[in-house]
């Protein structure tokens, strides 16, 4: 087994709810991420899936310390990022970067492509201006863009090309770890495959480690080595991608998989869906016991009282973590 690049332990990220204008009283918390633990191995892609509002993006941002986590620790190469500050943390940021969801909103429209991709180099004071210029052209080539595009502005590019610029910017400082937060969901189907293939090629060439956040389970199965499923701020299941799709244990994972449409009418004609009733409860007031107990088709009495443990049901070779009272 390869070493862990990132170790997340009992990570919590609460956003306070306040009342009053002058004297802001703290009346509750939105528990966006409520105690998640997992490891990311060097060189792998960990997929993080869940529905909107389940806390998957917040988890990604809290790992990179873009939010200050409420509790828990994030070890990057064995060092705890949550206790770091200032210059130490800034140095660490060179090794971990982020690719954002919306390629229309994440590029400054007033900067040229050269400035956008070169900015991380400037911030981290890497090279002189000539070296930076060469590096930017090299990066553009790497992501499949014409290096002569350096003086153009973002509006001159299509969505797929913009996302390539976002990828080039993330790669500028030679990071080891990249959090990709729904990098393809704003793109058209025929363009999505272009970006996914690019991310896979770059991983092979540069030995990158990805945390791939998405809600599209088919794409996550395709790109990930292991997949973590999140529901209402908590992980419900984590295992390698084959096991997750062939032998899902948690009722939520089972329902989620059965809800994904398959582009083949012969299969769709015969498929039995597990259709979940109702909606996701509010993260400011999660149910007692298991978070999924309000919608679970296999709910038992214990589920409404006791929170299930996060336990390993796997074999010696492969982990299979699940939190459910059925097991």
């Amino acid at each position, binding site marked *: 087994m390869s070493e862990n690049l990132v170790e997340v332990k009992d990570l919590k990220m609460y956003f306070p709810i306040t009342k009053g204008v002058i004297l802001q009283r703290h009346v509750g918390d939105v528990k966006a991420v409520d105690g998640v633990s997992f490891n990311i191995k060097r060189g792998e892609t960990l997929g993080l899936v869940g*529905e*909107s509002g389940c806390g998957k993006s917040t988890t990604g941002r809290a790992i990179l310390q873009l939010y200050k986590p409420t509790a828990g620790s994030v070890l990057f190469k064995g060092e705890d990022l949550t206790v770091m500050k200032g210059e130490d943390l800034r140095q660490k940021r060179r090794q971990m970067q982020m690719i954002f969801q919306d390629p229309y909103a994440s590029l400054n429209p007033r900067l040229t492509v050269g400035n956008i991709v070169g900015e991380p180099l400037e911030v981290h004071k890497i090279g002189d201006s000539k070296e930076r210029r060469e590096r930017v052209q090299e990066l553009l080539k790497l992501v499949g863009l014409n290096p002569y595009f350096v003086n153009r502005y973002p509006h001159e590019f*299509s969505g*797929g090309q913009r996302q390539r610029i976002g990828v080039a910017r993330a790669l500028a400082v030679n990071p080891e770890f990249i959090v990709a937060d729904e990098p393809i969901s704003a793109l*058209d*189907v*025929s*363009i*999505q*495959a*272009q970006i*996914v*293939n690019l991310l*896979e090629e770059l991983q092979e060439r540069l030995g990158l480690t990805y945390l791939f956040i998405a*809600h599209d*389970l*088919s*794409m996550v*199965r*395709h*790109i990930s080595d292991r997949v973590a499923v999140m529901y209402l701020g908590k992980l419900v299941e984590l295992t390698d*991608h*084959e096991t997750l*799709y062939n032998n899902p244990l948690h009722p939520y994972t089972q*329902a*989620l*998989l*059965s*809800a*994904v*449409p*398959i*582009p*083949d*009418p*012969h*299969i*769709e*004609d015969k*498929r039995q*869906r597990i*259709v*979940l009733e109702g*909606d996701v409860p509010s993260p400011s007031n999660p149910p007692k016991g298991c978070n999924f107990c309000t919608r679970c088709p296999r709910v038992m009495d214990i589920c409404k009282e006791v929170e299930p443990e996060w336990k390993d049901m796997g074999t010696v070779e492969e982990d299979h973590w699940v939190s459910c009272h059925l097991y």
Partner: protein
Amino acid sequence: MATLLEVKGLTTQFFTQDGVVHAVNGISYKLNEGETLAIVGESGCGKSVGVMSLIKLIPQPPGKIVAGEVWFDGKNLLEMSDDEIRQIRGNRIAMIFQDPMTSLNPVLTIGRQITEALQLHMGMDGEQSRARAVELLELVGISGAQSRLDNYPHQFSGGMRQRVMIAMGLSCNPQLLIADEPTTALDVTIQAQIVDLVKELKNRIGMAIIWITHDLGVVAGLAERVIVMYAGQIVEEAEVHDLYDNPHHPYTLGLLRSIPRLDLGNNEKLIPIDGLPPDLVDLPKGCPFAARCEFRIERCIAENPPAEYVTSSHRVACWRWEHVIAVQSQAGS
């Protein structure tokens, strides 16, 4: 089965500062009573503008329906006055939109919004329309319908709001329901709920549906017939099983190959379609897909192929469709 809707040579353009945007370029199709037709394509392919034009929901100016006929129940909708078409819209042809968050009025109660159409089109009084609204909400699976009539849209979740939209769409027993990406803004588990609901309602009420989407997965489980659009044109039309088993157009083939499938392993690399869709202001003279097509020959660049029937129910706009099929059967064997 009787034809409910026939579209002939519909052409819609937008006159903007940058030039004329050729959004829809002469599309023709038929829809039978009680049939589910899916229109598939990527953003900007004209699928939404195409159906909005049917009931004249295009902002004019800058948009303009330049040519075409839309025959519905023996009348050409495009020749109707605004008053006449208002009698059709929401009454005989209903529409549900992509984003349930923005298509409901936030300052009116759900009950007020549902009963409005009933009073306008069905001539019901307050009490009758309220009773019918309760019925409709129950039909779309909203519990406690009586009390929820007095709720505002913000008190409903995304999936529930889409149910309310569907209830409003069904309120006057339409013969045709147009659904413009109704599940795109929803999560997969909620999407499954809505798709199931629409299928069930269709069986019960028997209206025809035009379902617009970019998701080939949803189409597979829902539609009977599929139209694939690219750059404002119909490039392929077929029965749903036929289309997935035997795509004739290189674009359809490309779309099917570029999406990963949940039920298959991930060892194979995805095959993306290279390049970008053409600029709708400056469309190429030949086939709009030619620049991205692996089957391209010189004729494709010079001449735009018309959509022609190759069997009684399958039509394709491609000079090379026989070659596309031959390549697939080679790969399959």
